[in-house]
């Protein structure tokens, strides 16, 4: 068993750590220097735990998958390869693995492919749950253009019947985001995609919260007749006003943290989230379509001293791929969505490949309960579109678009996203090449737990919502053909 989760979170936070890649902006010294005041890695202005993860790894015997094609997402595609994992950690990957201990489950991988668990950097599962009525519409707190105080986890419904569908598509981790009605929509939730009673039991220990921000048409449309912003310049002024307030808030707290005399400053949930962005502990996850707007947002980050972690949707990212590469900002894109609104008119299928070529950390996201079930297919489309256009994209790079790169975008790349010894055993066994339209996930291991098995109804989780529906559909009782 791994250490209790609060401890783990503390460890990661104080070690400036394992989960924090080198390129991330360094957290402000004062935030880390205040001992014992930091309850979690990303809530340094309070001295109490805030909705801490209660995630526990599910016990599973050790597993050895043999004679498969292993796509490590770390540079290798190993034919006739094996992978061995135990207690939620990958122990060995390669062509020669010692005989497994007698308690290990041996999976014949002949003809199969194995990849890391897929990670969707942009999902609204749980916050826009099926069956999609107003009662489950919990993704946009569209009452104010800046709602940095709301947390997606407080909307998340673990019984969303879309969750087992996404699991069956090989997804092991998601970022569940607020919607894009607001300039600043609130905190995201980084979740292990497993059946659970509570969102706390899904929260990925040590993950960095994201802060959802949105450019362009959506905030303008929602607030244009409700007091603004009604223009793109109004959008920019809205972000700037919010971060100016956050700078003052952070200053007051930093001062008090370094010299705690008298009453602490008043807490303000909205500014607390924004101050954590300024400290580099919360990552900005920015819905933004147009190239010129992304350039403005990069400058916004420079104005306030933070780096935007990732632009989402980013259909015009290819136009400014040099700027993104220089800024160290990632891009989460679709393979081929376009045309549903004006800011999406310039989408091209080579977007991901051009970004990859320019050195941008690109990933393929879904933003969609249907697309999340086939992120591998979407990556395949984007990869082959690039190859056909003469851009040298490798299979390893393309599998990273749905594994290692989104792991980086969530600050989890030292923990998951590749098949390497020491990484968390988030593992998918595919019926064939995951870049073929005919392949499907056969087994999904989340932290070493066999959470889904297409050939075994005993490992096909169903939500409470699905019970009693006649005849059963949507995930239960299916056999592989």
């Amino acid at each position, binding site marked *: 068993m791994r250490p209790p989760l609060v401890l783990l979170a503390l460890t990661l936070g104080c070690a400036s750590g394992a989960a924090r890649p080198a390129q991330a902006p360094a957290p402000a010294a004062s935030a880390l220097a205040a001992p014992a005041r930091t309850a979690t890695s990303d809530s340094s202005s309070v001295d109490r735990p805030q909705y801490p993860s209660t995630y526990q790894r599910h016990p599973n015997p050790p597993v050895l998958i043999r004679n498969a094609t292993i796509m490590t997402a770390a540079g290798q595609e190993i034919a006739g390869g094996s992978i061995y994992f135990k207690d939620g950690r990958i122990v060995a990957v390669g062509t020669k693995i010692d005989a497994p201990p007698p308690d290990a489950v041996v999976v014949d991988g002949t003809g199969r492919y194995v990849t890391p668990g897929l990670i969707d950097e942009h999902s609204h599962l749980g916050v826009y749950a*099926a*069956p*999609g*009525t107003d009662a489950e519409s919990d993704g946009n707190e569209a009452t104010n253009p800046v709602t940095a105080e709301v947390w997606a986890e407080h909307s998340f419904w673990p019984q969303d*019947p*879309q969750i087992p*569908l996404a699991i069956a598509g090989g997804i092991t981790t998601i970022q569940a985001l607020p919607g894009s009605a607001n300039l600043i929509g609130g905190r995201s939730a980084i979740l292990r995609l497993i059946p659970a009673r509570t969102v706390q039991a899904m929260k990925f220990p040590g993950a960095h919260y994201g802060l959802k921000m949105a450019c362009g*048409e959506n905030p303008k449309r929602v607030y244009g007749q409700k007091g603004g912003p009604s223009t793109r310049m109004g959008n920019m002024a809205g972000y700037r006003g919010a971060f100016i307030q956050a700078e003052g808030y952070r200053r007051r707290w930093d001062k008090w943290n370094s010299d705690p005399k008298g009453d602490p400053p008043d807490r303000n949930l909205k500014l607390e989230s924004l101050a954590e962005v300024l400290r580099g502990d919360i990552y900005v996850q920015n819905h933004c379509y147009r190239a010129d707007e992304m350039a403005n947002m990069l400058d916004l980050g420079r104005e306030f001293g933070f780096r935007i972690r990732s632009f989402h949707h980013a259909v015009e990212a*290819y*136009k400014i*791929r*040099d700027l993104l590469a220089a800024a160290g900002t990632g891009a989460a894109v679709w393979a*081929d*969505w*376009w*045309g*549903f*609104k*004006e800011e999406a*008119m*310039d*989408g*091209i*299928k*080579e977007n991901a490949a*051009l970004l990859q070529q320019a050195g941008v950390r690109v990933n393929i996201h879904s933003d969609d*309960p*249907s697309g999340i*079930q*086939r992120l591998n*297919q979407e990556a*395949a*489309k984007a*990869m*082959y579109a690039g190859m*056909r*256009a003469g851009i040298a994209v490798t299979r390893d790079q393309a599998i990273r678009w749905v594994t290692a790169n989104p792991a980086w975008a969530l600050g989890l790349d030292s923990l998951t996203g590749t098949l390497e010894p020491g990484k968390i055993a988030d593992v998918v066994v595919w019926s064939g090449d995951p*870049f*073929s*339209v*005919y*392949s*499907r996930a056969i087994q999904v291991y989340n932290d070493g737990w066999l959470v889904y098995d297409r050939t075994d109804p005993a490992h096909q989780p169903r939500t409470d919502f*699905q019970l009693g*529906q006649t*005849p059963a*559909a*949507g995930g239960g009782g*299916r056999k592989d*053909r």
Partner: protein
Amino acid sequence: MIAFLLAQTIAITGGTVYPVSGPKIANATVLIRDGKIAAVGTSVAVPSDATRIDATGKWVTPGLIDGAGQMGLVEIGAVAGTREALLKGDTIAASFNVAEGINPASVVIPVTRIEGVTTVLAVPAGNLVSGQAVLIDLAGNTIEEMLVKSPVGIVLNDSETGKDFAGGSRAALVERVRRVFRDALEYERRRADFGRAQLRSLSAAAADLEALLPVLHGQEPLIAYANRRSDIESALRLAREFKLKLVLAGAQEGWQIAGEIVQAGVPVLVEPLDNIPSYDALGIRYENAGLLAKAGVKVALMETDTHNSRNLRQQAGNAVAYGMTWDQALRAVTLSPAEIFGVADRYGSLEPGKVANVVVWSADPFEFATGVEHVLIRGKEIPLRSRQTELFERYRQLPPAY
């Protein structure tokens, strides 16, 4: 901006030809003359003046037919000024034929056809009776040039959204449709009385009742979008009562009553990658297309996202992954929709006399690795260019050359 080459004789040689109407033929020639297929086979004599397209190692199929979407009717989803598919203010919009709303200059058209979809159904949206769907080829400078068949059928919205136009109850929806159908027949019998204003008030405008008559005489299909099993059964009931030629669309819970659908002889338009449960179809699942086909239902596939109609082949590939045979899936995007839309005498297969909508693929059309090498619509090769290829070329190197 469609650069047609002049009509001519074209020979596609050396490829593996999938005529759909028969088994595949290795190393075959498809000969095209004056927009039509002249010959298909291994011993076709190629005239010396023919333009040759070498398809050695390639796969040759009919152009794909998407049984859904608003091609030419919606340019930008969020911009009302570019949307033409919905008639507001008339819930029984039977006389609303979308053809004259089609924009032949839509940039969506080249994006779609260069990926192998050559023909699509353009479908009206909303209301209880949405209007008349038309079939178009994705080439031509005018609406007239594009039209393959108009109307193909009248669209009924027999679903959760349709009932909003019938007082908010499924029971009222079916009864309202029944009244409209009866009134149409009454109107037909007593046109003269109607003209003299001696007929009681009817439940829809005269033009709409008139438009329904070909459907009520079984000359034109009623295309009923219905997903919940009980809604599908309502559509089947209406079809029995009025002896309609019914086509089901959506049919997300159709797999539950595949036998009934087969028995009724009703074909179905399915979107394979639909599986998100809603109260309109809690029993929705990926296996729907495969289970219907296995039961013997004639299935055609849809990609309902107009801007990504090009993903019809991904839909087909997934239909195979979830139970259709590959041959069934190819038929479901070529000959079956042609049959369902009443144009199989001209479309859907590679046979002499048929319209030469032909695609040469680098390999299996359903696979992501496969690219489109040549597209011919009505016997003319289409340049593989679109607004998207132009954007790519512009930004291939930075900074772009404006």
